[in-house]
């Protein structure tokens, strides 16, 4: 760095501190370009925001945040956070500070949810969000996980078709009235009607001032969820600017965007308003906007309070799973606009914490919401603890010798069984040949014999990925298998054991794929030159027929591999005829285990992959 650059760097640093302070000091200093606040007619409005709740009515097992300690600037304090009963308490507390308050969301309230919510088709979360006072939320990509019809049902009410009333849907008095809050979707067009799926905006009046809210999700939603078929997602900046301009022309004093798209910072603790190192898709969006005062963002699961230096727009995000809530205070002058704005990310600190730094509050559970959560919990527990099938021998995860880390380069019995379950889930008419899953697609083994519950299976395969089939030629299949030991699945740094580089990521095959590979041929060949698989050994199908390199084979796998070529298995993306089977991984696994009753438990699966040159621990 030359002197000029150094000066520029540190000047920028100083300026960012100044900007951060200007934002923090908003109520005191006002803002350039807008009139100073007139205490006589200024209206104070509070927005309480959350995002990416994902149905976590109970605290997520690992949910913590790091707090700075005002009495010890070099220390951070880790606290347990989250849970709907605590969020409800915090919202009540914040509302008590200012009656001109509204609770808003930035999407992904539901979807990729734990059993307590997903077992009710997320009706539990929709109900509780209404009870804790949510008024309006943007849709996120996960709201579309089950398709547009199901999302409309969550908004408008009614029981889920094909589900058991009272157990799987309409679990409260056999009815579901729909969301008490309003979903906004300013950039989501239903291709069938050419109309917006939900209203684009919401207007709320506080005394003499109006606050206009625009809600939308990222344009990349179709790439992020399978349920967005038949919908068009318009560009965020174009849509926001159109509605913001309209609001301003109507005399709306404050324009707030609820946007399911975000960024991330390099902050070390919660609520670092210097917004260090902000990056991500939110930046070009913020910088492209006019007539917007505040953005409540989401999607990236980060936590930040930032003020864009070029537009002055305050933009925030509140982590995920309800661990944090953003408290936004606006001062608005009737007929003029927002004269000050500030925000704080507040940790939802549970009463499991004994002590917190000065300035933070330990929350008690809201009793009403706690009762509701317990009711949904009991309902889901009954289902989770139900026996689904029986196994005759444990189905463990194999760990690396002398460690508790998974060995990614071997067959795991549980992996084989889940691959068999995936294959069985494909409709007979599809004539699927084999199934494959990545070892990371199995979270834990079944280290016992006898009855297996839903909870056991969910622990093994908790991702909620949809299953697909895709067609690969014999040549492509060989290439796919070679990718198991090519960089980066085979790390750049050799993982030597007994002079053998044991790196690799072995796809867990169904019983209809068997083959031999030879570790001595050396891993890490460039793509296209791998030669570890003995092609002549590959057998496909129930009758174990030799592989035909020119024939097309139908492969069942999950969305992680099929759609995204995840874990570097890019050959999946070169396949053809990608088709969503319409079954989620856990559903396929449960259905498969249900074929094995107590008097005919599942026998341990046979090995499908042979490696005569591998050391014994493979």
């Amino acid at each position, binding site marked *: 760095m030359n002197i000029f650059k150094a000066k520029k760097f540190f000047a920028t640093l100083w300026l960012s501190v100044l900007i951060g302070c200007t934002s923090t000091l908003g109520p005191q200093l006002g803002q350039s370009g807008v009139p100073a606040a007139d205490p006589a007619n200024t209206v104070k409005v509070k927005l309480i925001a959350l995002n990416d709740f994902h149905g976590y009515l109970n605290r997520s097992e690992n949910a913590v945040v790091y707090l700075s300690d005002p009495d010890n600037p070099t220390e951070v304090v880790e606290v347990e956070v989250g849970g709907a009963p605590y969020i409800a308490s915090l919202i009540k507390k914040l509302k008590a500070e200012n009656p001109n308050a509204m609770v808003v969301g930035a999407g992904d309230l539901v979807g990729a949810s734990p059993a307590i919510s997903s077992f009710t088709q997320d009706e539990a979360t929709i109900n509780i969000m209404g009870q804790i006072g949510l008024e309006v939320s943007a849709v996120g990509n996960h709201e579309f996980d089950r398709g547009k019809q199901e999302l409309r049902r969550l908004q408008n009410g009614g029981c889920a078709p094909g589900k058991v009333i009272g157990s799987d849907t309409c679990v409260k008095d056999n009815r579901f009235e729909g969301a008490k809050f309003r979903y906004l979707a300013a950039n989501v067009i239903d291709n069938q009607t050419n109309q917006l799926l939900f209203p684009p905006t919401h207007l709320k009046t506080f005394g003499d001032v109006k606050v206009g809210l625009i809600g939308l999700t990222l344009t990349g939603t179709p790439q992020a969820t399978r349920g967005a078929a038949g919908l068009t997602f318009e560009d965020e900046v174009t849509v926001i600017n159109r509605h913001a301009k309209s609001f301003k022309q109507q005399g709306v004093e404050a324009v707030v965007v609820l946007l399911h798209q975000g960024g991330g910072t390099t902050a070390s603790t919660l609520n670092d308003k210097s917004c260090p190192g902000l990056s*991500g898709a939110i930046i070009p969006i913020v910088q492209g906007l006019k007539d917007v005062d505040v953005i409540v963002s989401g999607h990236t699961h980060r936590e930040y309070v930032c003020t864009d230096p070029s537009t002055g727009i305050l933009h925030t995000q509140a982590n995920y799973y309800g661990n*944090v809530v953003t408290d936004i205070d606006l001062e608005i002058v009737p007929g003029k606009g927002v004269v000050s704005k500030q925000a704080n990310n507040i940790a939802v600190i549970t009463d499991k914490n004994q002590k917190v730094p000065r300035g933070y509050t330990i929350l008690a559970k809201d009793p009403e919401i706690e009762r509701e959560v317990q009711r949904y919990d009991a309902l889901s527990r009954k289902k989770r603890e139900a026996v689904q099938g029986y196994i005759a021998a444990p189905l463990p995860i194999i760990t690396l010798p002398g460690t508790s880390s998974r060995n990614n380069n071997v067959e795991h019995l549980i992996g084989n069984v889940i691959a068999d379950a995936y294959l069985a889930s494909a409709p007979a008419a599809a004539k699927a040949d084999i199934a494959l899953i990545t070892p990371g697609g199995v979270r834990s083994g079944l280290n016992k014999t006898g009855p297996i519950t839903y909870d056991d299976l969910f622990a093994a395969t908790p991702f909620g990925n949809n299953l697909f089939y895709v067609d690969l030629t014999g040549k492509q299949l060989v290439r796919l298998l070679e990718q198991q030991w090519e960089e980066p699945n085979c790390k750049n740094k050799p993982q030597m054991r007994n002079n053998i580089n044991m790196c690799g990521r072995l796809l867990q095959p169904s019983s209809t794929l068997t083959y031999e590979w030879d570790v001595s041929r050396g891993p890490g060949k460039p793509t296209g030159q791998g030669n570890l698989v003995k092609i002549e050994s590959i057998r496909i199908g129930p009758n174990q027929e030799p592989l035909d390199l020119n024939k097309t084979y139908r492969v069942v796998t999950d969305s992680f591999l099929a759609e995204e070529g995840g874990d570097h298995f890019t050959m999946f993306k070169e396949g053809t005829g990608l088709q969503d089977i319409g079954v989620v991984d856990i559903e396929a696994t449960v259905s498969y285990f249900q074929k094995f009753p107590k008097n005919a438990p599942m026998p341990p699966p046979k090995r499908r992959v042979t490696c005569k040159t591998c050391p014994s621990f493979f």
Partner: protein
Amino acid sequence: MTSPVHACLIALALSMPTVSLTHAGQSQEADEALTVLQNAAKDTQKTCFMRIHFDTFQYQDCVTELSASHHDNDLVNLGINYFGYVGAMDAVRTGMLGAEQSAHLFLGQFRKLQKKLNISDQSLCASIPGNCNIRIALMKKMEQAPTPVLTDRDASSNHHRH
């Protein structure tokens, strides 16, 4: 308790002399090294940072791959691995599965390079925006703690589609 006004005035006052002192004491060589570190960190941030939510281990792999592609340049590698640590810590501070293991991994990697290149914690910290007092304290705390062990539950990819 310090008011927001008071706190900001203190921060503003403190930032200026620190900048001057830092600048006055830096050789051109050190300035250039900082630029290399900043660029390497920015490149890592741009390439890998957002993957951490999708999958902690995809992030780890991304940083590792980027590092391997610059294996012949220790300074660039330091910037990459240092961002690897800072990025992982952003996920650690909100309890993301697997993030602590990634942070430990990159902490070990960049410490070796930092020692080899004889770069101070403060100089390194200046390459990525943030509160250096807390970041350095957390680094030291993590070094004293045992390396977290991967369990079956978190040894795998998150696979969460955001």
